[in-house]
């Protein structure tokens, strides 16, 4: 096999067959286009990829789709379950539907683009990746987010950015409530430029006005334990 698109039908092939084939690809493979049929919500589809290939999943994916992705582009033509692109290092994961909890959890790099909504804890423990959610995000999103960027076109649920470190958060809609140590910060030119660059990378520049976003980040009052802050913990 070489050249054209590879198709793996999970109605007949096993998840193991699919992932083993994808893991076996060298970085300079010419088998760069893959289609996964009948995913039927299976877990860990296209998890642990390391080669710069493009995998399109024709339907809904279960937990940890594209988990720990490196270099690959994974497209979910449906909804994604818990932990899509968790701990992603690089590459791009694009969910055309909605994403469940913990989307992009602890991701270190790459771009996670969600066309629909993301549930609770989107970007939890974020460590450097970029996440763009065109819908809204659920409660406790960006909890303990350390680094990276989360841009939300819609609303954010309660406890947004709780215990955040240095991640950059942008929300266009309403934030139900901010978590401990998360505050609204001024939106300056370089923040608008950063957001515009992210939206451009996500192919969404021009879809929304970056001037309509508000910026949130760490007040840094909880960085060093102090007993007078005990009520905040």
């Amino acid at each position, binding site marked *: 096999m070489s050249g054209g698109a590879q198709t793996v039908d999970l109605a007949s092939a096993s998840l193991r067959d699919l992932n083993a084939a994808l893991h076996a690809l060298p970085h300079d493979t010419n088998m760069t286009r893959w289609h996964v049929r009948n995913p039927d919500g299976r877990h860990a589809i296209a998890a642990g990829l390391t080669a710069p290939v493009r995998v399109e999943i024709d339907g809904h994916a279960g*937990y940890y789709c594209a988990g720990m992705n490196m270099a690959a582009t994974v497209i979910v033509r449906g909804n994604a379950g818990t932990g899509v692109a968790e701990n992603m290092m690089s590459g791009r994961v694009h969910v055309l539907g909605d994403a469940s909890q913990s989307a992009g959890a602890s991701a270190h790099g790459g771009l996670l683009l969600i066309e629909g909504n993301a549930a609770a804890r989107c970007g939890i423990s974020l460590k450097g990746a970029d996440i763009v959610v065109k819908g809204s995000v659920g409660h406790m999103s960006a909890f303990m987010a350390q680094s990276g960027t989360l841009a939300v076109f819609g609303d954010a649920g309660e406890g947004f950015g709780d215990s955040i470190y240095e991640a950059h958060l942008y929300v266009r809609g309403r934030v139900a409530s901010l978590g401990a140590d998360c505050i609204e910060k001024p939106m300056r030119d370089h923040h608008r430029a950063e957001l515009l660059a992210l939206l451009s990378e996500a192919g969404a520049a021009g879809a929304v006005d970056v001037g309509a976003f508000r910026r949130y980040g760490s007040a840094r009052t909880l960085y*060093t334990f102090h007993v007078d802050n005990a009520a905040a913990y």
Partner: protein
Amino acid sequence: MEATPHTPPRFSATFDPATLAEIRRAAATGIYDIRGAGTKRKLPHFDDLLFLGASISRYPLEGYRERCGTEVVLGARHAKRPITLKIPITIAGMSFGSLSAQAKEALGRGATLAGTSTTTGDGGMTDEERGHSQTLVYQVLPSRYGMNPDDLRRADAIEVVVGQGAKPGGGGMLLGQKISPRVAAMRTLPEGIDQRSACRHPDWTGPDDLEIKILELREITDWQKPIYVKVGASRPYYDTALAAKAGADVVVIDGMQGGTAATQDVFIEHVGIPTLAAIRPAVAALQELGLHRRVQLIVSGGIRSGADVAKALALGADAVSIGTAALVALGDNDPRYEADYQALGSTAGAYDDWHEGRDPAGITTQDAALSARLDPVLAGRRLANYLAVLTLETQAIARACGKSHVHNLEPEDLVALTIEAAAMAQVPLAGTNWIPGKATF
């Protein structure tokens, strides 16, 4: 004239001097005490068990002559590449960050010389420890600091950490003093700030999610690596059954004597159960599932001697893990640094302010000058020597009980010195056939 008898000053057992001092400290500072190491209170422990040895009905094996096997295979349940250790004693997870790079290297060197594994910790894998550890277990922790799939693939086994014995239900703490530029970069955090490790995993909760998480880790590593699940001892029967059901190859149970880099003293002393009380329920869970010996059980928390190792194995563990004892073997709390300990307001043997990063022995520190005090080659040799002694002692007991492999030790080889130990270990009180809670007729 005779002096009038008077009552000498008498301290309260409830409000003893240590308690009074802690109340004064709390009143002066307004913050709880944070420290390293494990529980310091006296607990029912392996000391409360004795081996019966051979007698007329059982014959022993000759020391130094007749073979007594010590090897252990971990992970054969699901992993394509199970690991084989020469001895049933492993080195527990301790992070680079809480420990100096020299200490991590020494642990790898010592474990490798002894033919056993060492384990990463919160904060990721360093090249030094990978390079010096023949068999390295990579921890997947709630914080996911430094979590890297390439490290997952270059590890020999994976340990999903749910909790640890010093603080079941608690996350980690690495205070700002130890966040050096290298530690900060590995953990994607600003330098010098207090760093808390999460107490829950970010992308799974509960046994059903854990099963899927384990599936993901297996898929990412192509089903090559053994996967451990580590829990702090609190509900060992249920936790072991749930971990096994979730697909673990190995279950690690860490009792409350197990150490920590930094946790509230109240947490260390009052949450979790003793190691002695955790083994039989965990073994029972595996036996009821038909998985005892197929899913390996590693027990840790307060293992100090070959007697402790032999007792843990006799109660049904496949291996033990050591942390605090390994640090002592490297040189932790060595009396030769007494003047330095005194300067820190402590004394050799009692020093536990590991979180402050000023360890005179160069182990629990990121200070360049202090950590340079630890020679990783020499310290690794000391650890290897200590592991050899633990193994020889374990074999000496096993041979005395007539066992050709340390795994042949069994509860029937043991009796208890106290009613508490008899109940917890479910072995008879010495000289009786009484196991509290069990019918004897």
